[in-house]
């Protein structure tokens, strides 16, 4: 058996780490370029702002990634964020203690995720369809509940949270770490993480190997719903209002972050650190474009081009081994 371990094999094994480093390098490069070409980018104020912007999409992208790894998609997350701001605002304004209000909002997110799991597993609906349906109807339900008005939250402590920093780093960014570390352990070091990958790769083979495929799918969508509701709470805190039409298009930004971070839409390929970096790369591009006075329309085009370029090179590398 002369299977010579040519170095190429090692790099393949460390492929995930390598790809992550490449993304990190890209992010740092963007930051260096922007620091040199604008006077305002490197200011503490702007960096904090950027981190706040990126944090929410980053958390959404983590939940989205769990779903995409199983071979699915969750189009509802933007709508869930908007809906969650309404729930949180109503509960807090009703005088319910903030922590309880947050817990209930998160439970609503879990319930929405479970509903998606039910639609996919029990009703046999494609993920695209059931989450698209939720996307439109949740916004509708939110509008009904608020009569189309915004609810402004009258609790200063709640809003303070997202404006404050801890150790010089915005609280919102700490939330990314709060979500990211358990998510990393869950995906890469727990049994259920392995099951997410195996279901995404071959559901039938997983099933015959004793993996509870249905439960795995429920879990993925529930976690995505939970992340979205959590982001809803953060957004309510940041903006101070509950409005169901907020976070328009965030589902696409979350998917884009995930894909830029190396997640394959065919399933079974993905990580936690990739989408996080992807989200901050997108946030940096938007922020930089603003500072450089680039037309907002161009920002969208740049994002699109970036998605194509990164996914193309990633695909080249993966196929290179074949």
């Amino acid at each position: 058996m002369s299977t010579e371990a040519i170095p190429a094999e090692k790099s393949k094994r460390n492929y995930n780490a390598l790809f992550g480093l490449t993304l990190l390098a890209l992010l740092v490069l963007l930051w260096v370029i922007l620091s040199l070409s604008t006077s305002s980018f490197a200011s503490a104020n702007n960096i904090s702002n950027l981190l706040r912007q990126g944090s929410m999409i980053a958390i959404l992208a983590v939940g989205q990634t769990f779903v995409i790894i199983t071979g699915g998609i969750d189009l509802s997350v933007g709508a869930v964020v908007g809906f969650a701001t309404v729930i949180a605002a109503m509960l807090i304004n009703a005088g319910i203690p903030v922590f309880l209000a947050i817990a209930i909002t998160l439970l609503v997110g879990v319930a929405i995720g479970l509903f998606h799991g039910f639609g996919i597993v029990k009703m046999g609906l494609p993920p695209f369809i059931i989450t698209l349906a939720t996307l439109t109807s949740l916004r509708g339900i939110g509008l009904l509940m608020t009569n189309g008005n915004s609810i402004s939250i009258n609790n200063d402590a709640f809003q303070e949270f997202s404006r404050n920093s801890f150790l010089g780093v915005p609280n919102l960014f700490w939330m990314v770490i709060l979500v990211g570390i358990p998510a990393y352990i869950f995906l890469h070091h727990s049994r259920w993480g392995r099951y997410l990958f195996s279901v995404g790769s071959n559901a039938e083979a997983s099933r015959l190997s004793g993996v509870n495929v249905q439960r795995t799918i429920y879990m993925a969508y529930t976690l995505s719903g939970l992340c979205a509701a959590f982001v809803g709470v953060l957004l309510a805190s940041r903006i101070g209002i509950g409005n169901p039409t907020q976070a328009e298009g965030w589902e696409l930004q979350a998917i884009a972050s995930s894909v830029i971070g190396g997640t394959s839409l065919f399933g079974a390929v993905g990580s936690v650190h990739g989408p996080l970096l992807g989200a901050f790369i997108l946030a940096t591009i938007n922020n930089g474009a603003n500072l450089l006075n680039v037309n907002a329309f161009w920002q969208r085009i740049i994002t699109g081009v970036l998605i194509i370029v990164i996914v193309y090179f990633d695909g080249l590398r993966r196929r290179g081994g074949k």
Partner: protein
Amino acid sequence: MTSTAQDLHPAPVLEPGRTILELRGLEKKYPGTHALKPVTLAFKSGEIHAIVGENGAGKSTLIKLLTGVMPRTSGEVIWEGNPAALATPHEAMALGINAVHQEVVLCRHLTVAANMFLGEENSRFGILQQRVMVKEAQKIIDDLGFDLPAHVMLGDLTIGQQQLIAAARATVRGTKFLIFDEPTAYLTRKEADQLFTLIRRLKSEGVTIIYISHRMEEVFELADRVSVLRDGTLVGTRNIAETNDAELVKLMINRSIEQVYHKEHFTPGAAIVETRNLSGKGFENVSMTVRAGEIVGLYGLIGAGRSEFVTTLYGRHRKSAGQILWEGKPVQVNSEHDAIRLGMALAPESRRDQGLCLNLPVGLNLNLPIYKRISKNLLISGAQEKAQADRQIADLRIKTPTRHALASSLSGGNQQKIVIGKWLAHGAKLFIFDEPTVGVDVGTKAEIYRLFGALLSKGAGIILISSYLPEVYELADTLHVFRRGKLVATHGFRTADHEEILTQALAEKQEKLGGKI
């Protein structure tokens, strides 16, 4: 539209014995594996040239280079005197080189007929000529002597049947050079015979054939010459009349094997599982018992209902009637989860569709059934995960650079070893092996049979399904014959001869045919 099957593959005008295809230093490197070291070899037109070698020796790689599926690293290919780039499958086909690959690469969601003409529907049939297409495909299939319908979805056929369709498909496109990569792996003797008839006919029409197989008797039955690959190196080419089984095996693995079918006999213990008149989709009224320490073999033609029976026993499909007793007590097996909890393990028939997560690492595939055991609460023990995977890789001699390599990068036979290996550490009481040694080389087969013995000695029972009669014949303590979804005969260890068992597996079909004539 009046063309007959005959003139669909017009006899190439080639004088036999002339060199048609020549390899000069053909080489292939994958990242991490030197799959094919420079090979120089000439194929004569009109010969049947067998290629044999261990799993991972480089046989399929050679085929992929010849059919333009993979680019070569270096070397030259000379086709009818001219260098050929063979950069795309299209180019190979245009030259007249076709292949029936080891893994069926057709569309499961199209009809058999659509698959037969895939890629040339337009030139041959205008739009919406579905019925003409089905009719024509049916004619070709009948003409080849395959008993298969042309209008059904390909995915509804068993893998063996799909393999036959792939063979039929390759023959309809004016081919001069046809490669079969382990075509009989999933076929029973009868279907294999139909295929051999087809191969001989093609040869008589002047087609050059490469035939890859792990079954020596097929090589001696069919081939004119045989080449042996070992670890990517061509170690010899022999005229079939001037060699023998032992020499080829010696060339292949560089040592000799005294006994492939290693059979240990144990006194059977208590019944582990018993079915009473179990019926379901594809089989009815099957009653049998598996006891601790015995191998129960199931033999039958493709589509005889053996796989359906075991997947139903395993809870994957619903039973329509009957009873399952586990260790003497009636049980409900409503899902594979229930089955695994009771202590069943199933290595399914199709490694690609049911057995493997192809784009995931070898290690993850091997550990999938036992993650619960090697994790505390939810967290996986990295050390155990590594140890378990590496043990199976060593025990089954799975040829892979590391456990991190993707399952898809392994050779067919080595993938098959994962399908079996993942259950060996599971500690089940009843092991169901559905075609466990498909595409596995002789040396490893012997190893797997020895592992069967080890499982039995620990008090497990085994259900062994094989379409390869010698395998069930030499290993099964109890041998059940299936025919058209029914259990029609039962034998003890070697109490019936091959002839009798074959007749029982076939009988009904022959009666039916007899009635027609």
